[in-house]
């Protein structure tokens, strides 16, 4: 099969899958560096944020809103809307979208 015969949506879908993997890698690094970077020492020497050990605060409390923010940026700038329908239906969806744009 030639490359130009390939469903055009797949190139974009692949790009988005890679972005998701990058987000996964980012979350892992954040989680790992905060937890073991700040938390590996003697518990007597820990610093605290809002009553929690700093390693825990940054890796667990900050981590998941932060990755949501990163994802928001990715979705906003890297993800595209695309019709999901197979073949003929896709056309009508694309037409409907074009129409919708005209109206807006």
């Amino acid at each position, binding site marked *: 099969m030639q490359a130009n015969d390939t469903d055009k949506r*797949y190139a974009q879908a692949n790009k988005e899958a890679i972005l998701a993997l990058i*987000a996964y890698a980012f979350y892992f690094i954040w989680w790992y560096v905060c937890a073991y970077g700040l938390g590996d020492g003697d518990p007597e020497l820990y610093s605290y944020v809002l009553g929690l050990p700093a390693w825990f605060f940054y890796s667990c409390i900050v981590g998941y809103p932060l990755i949501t923010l990163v994802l928001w940026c990715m979705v906003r700038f890297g993800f595209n809307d695309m019709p999901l329908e197979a073949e003929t239906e896709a056309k009508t969806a694309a037409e409907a979208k074009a129409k919708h744009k005209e109206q807006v």
Partner: protein
Amino acid sequence: MSERIASIVPVLLYLALSLGVALWARKREVQSTSPQRFIEEYFIGGRSMGGFVLAMTIIASYTSASSFVGGPGVAYQLGLSWVLLSMIQVPTTFLTLGILGKRFAIVGRKTGAVTISDYLRARYRSDTVVILCSLALLVFFMAAMLAQFIGGARLFQAVTGYPYVVGLALFGITVVLYTAVGGFRAVVLTDAMQGIVMVIAAVVVLLAVVQAGGGMGQCIATLKSIDPGLITPTGPKNSVPQPFILSFWVLVGLGILGLPQTTQRCMAYKDSQSLHSAMLIGTLIIGFMILCAHLSGTLGRAVLPNLPAGDLAMPTLIVELLSPFWAGVFIAGPLAAIMSTVDSMLLLASAAIIKDLYIHYGLHGNITRLSPEKLKIMSFGSTLTIGFLVFLAALEPPDLLVWINLFAFGGLEAVFLWPVVLGLYWKKANAAGAIASILVGLVVFFALSILKPPMGGIHAIVPTTLAALCAFAAGAYWGRPAEPEVLRLFWGKMQ
């Protein structure tokens, strides 16, 4: 006695609400004129989910009794290190949706697939692949559903004081009924509602624990005085070593792509905007919920330091700290987690029997030989029967199923991960590779889990995943390549 009643009222209200939502969902169901139409309605809700429901159903099917009782119980014993471990589950929604979401939605529509087995059949055109996967799904799902039922009924007994059987009957019958009657729409709508209940329950108990412990700083200080290991990332006496915790990035991170009850959702949403918003909503909510539930377990140690077993932590905290009414509200949380896992599995097990096995082998794939009414009755019947069997098993749990459940999560991953992911992304993926990967994955996983050779703390799923990948590559290299027709259908252009 009145306390008992006060704690059961929120549970009853909640169960009635679930049934109500399911009946409402049924009303919205589009009337089916053909058997194919009925299948698209009953098993995948006409591919109409929006972003919020998509996010909630993935979270709810994924989180189970262990997120509310088992996990926080371990966190009670091992401290903040186990909360750190639990937060590895945060990427589950965005990874599933980001990697499989669009490809699955497109392929599902191209091939008319409504389950993972449908997709595997269309991709590999191999009876062996489909039968192996359907059987694995039935066995592991039955065991997992049973474990959920038992966990729920025990928790109900511990908190309300009513007998085990009463709890089992109450929520067992509710979940089986609404799933059978309402199909996919009922499952995902109740999932969304159950997700909300789970979030409320997690917050309520965390606030109660922090307050009882005299504030966050005081709780942590108390934990430190009990054992400084409770506030380190490696746990008391280094009981959560790095190779072990890092394995979970494979088990729950990559492995989630192999769980049929969550990946099937990628075929069922409406449009790409729903997918984008679900990735954000899902990540934020699952992070918040898991954090609250596990942190409650850890901090609970500062409030009640001397419990004999971690599993008692959550039930005891609820009974001690909350008024009977709020205890009832909390108990609805884990019940919701259980029901939302069971309903998805129940419907997919039923789909495996009706669609993947009966229609294909009983009717030789000729679905037009069935009237929509007959298909409807058979689908209801099969969902009811499976649910009833699990219910009976939970009354007197058979050791074999309880034992199998220990391997359900990893076993499903060993079977489904590579055939699903490589089928979507690799044109050279073929039936021989898929079969090799399933068999090698299962054998390696069970051998390592049972024999437990020393692996430096690495979880069995890591070598299993690698071995299954190698087996897949070998099969793809030596076996017959996928048919050009299949490649055209999967990768071909839109007309």
